[in-house]
């Protein structure tokens, strides 16, 4: 069995490599896939060099499982094509609310895995995943009626670029220099921003709506 990671050079992709190094997942070959920008770059996995391949011409029939961690637009464009040949486990939000795609935290609802229709399985939003895993044992015992949650999210949730920018901004502030935000709506260093993702008409943001909808789907 072979595996591919799409977005292998990003935050989630690199973490997936780390997790695979530790776990005893039985697979033969690992294909690392990213954009043309990273093509040919070498990444070490289990002591061996792996060359990064270009998604545009990657042949998914070579693998049994493909992890997608390259964002919503890439999942929208490539996941269904890939799913004709292999099982896709998608980190993006694109398929999460699709009724034909199970949204899984294994400890919570692995029973939904027998309803795979499109050969695609979705990973919940990061805030949803940690909420439902902690709520599940309590829901089983006492039945949850209502949850009110405030999240305090780290910058890595937005990818590698915002993570690097937090460090850059912090240095600028400490040096007494002016900060101009690139990946944030306001200065993030020494600050807090009450907003993630785009605003909906009712004043909520998509991130907030995702958490509420995904939690319900997960507990169904």
């Amino acid at each position, binding site marked *: 069995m072979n595996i591919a990671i799409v977005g292998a050079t990003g935050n989630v992709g690199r973490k997936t490599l780390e997790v695979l190094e530790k776990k005893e997942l039985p697979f033969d070959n690992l294909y690392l896939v990213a954009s043309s920008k990273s093509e040919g770059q070498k990444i070490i996995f289990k002591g061996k060099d792996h060359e990064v391949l270009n998604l545009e011409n990657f042949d998914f029939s070579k693998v049994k499982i493909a*992890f997608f961690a390259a964002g919503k637009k890439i999942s929208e464009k490539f996941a269904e094509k890939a799913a004709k040949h292999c099982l896709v486990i998608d*980190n993006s939000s694109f398929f999460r609310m699709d009724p034909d795609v199970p949204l899984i935290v294994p400890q919570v609802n692995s029973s939904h895995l027998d309803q795979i229709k499109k050969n695609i399985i979705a990973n919940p939003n990061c805030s949803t995943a940690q909420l439902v895993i902690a709520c599940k*044992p309590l829901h089983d015992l006492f039945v949850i009626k209502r949850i009110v949650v405030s999240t305090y999210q780290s910058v890595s949730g937005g990818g590698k670029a915002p993570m690097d920018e937090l460090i850059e901004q912090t240095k600028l502030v400490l040096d007494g220099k002016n900060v101009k935000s690139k990946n944030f709506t306001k200065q993030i260093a020494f600050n*807090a921003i009450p907003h993630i993702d785009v605003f909906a008409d009712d004043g909520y943001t998509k991130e907030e709506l995702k958490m509420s909808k995904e939690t319900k789907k997960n507990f169904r």
Partner: protein
Amino acid sequence: MPISVSHSESVNIQFEKSFSLEKVRSALDNFEGCKVIDERIDGGYSTPLEAEGKDETFISRIREDKTIKNGLNLWIVSDNLLRGAALNAVEIAETLIKNNFYGK
């Protein structure tokens, strides 16, 4: 937040049924993937920095919300790149393999 890794959540839950803090604690601590760190002393809780790189989701500040019926407050911290992404995805793959891909 100006934090590199791990998301924190302040959570208020209302249950249908009555609960005891003891049962809440043991249910959380015995659930795969969860760990209770809740000592009710200075530093007796988890923070994002400490959760970074860990597989577990940490639950702290477990206390009753006495302003509503069957109310509970929690502080939940987890590495967003692990439970929130990479670890969860790999665990899904493990579950699929263990179950022979459910015949797919």
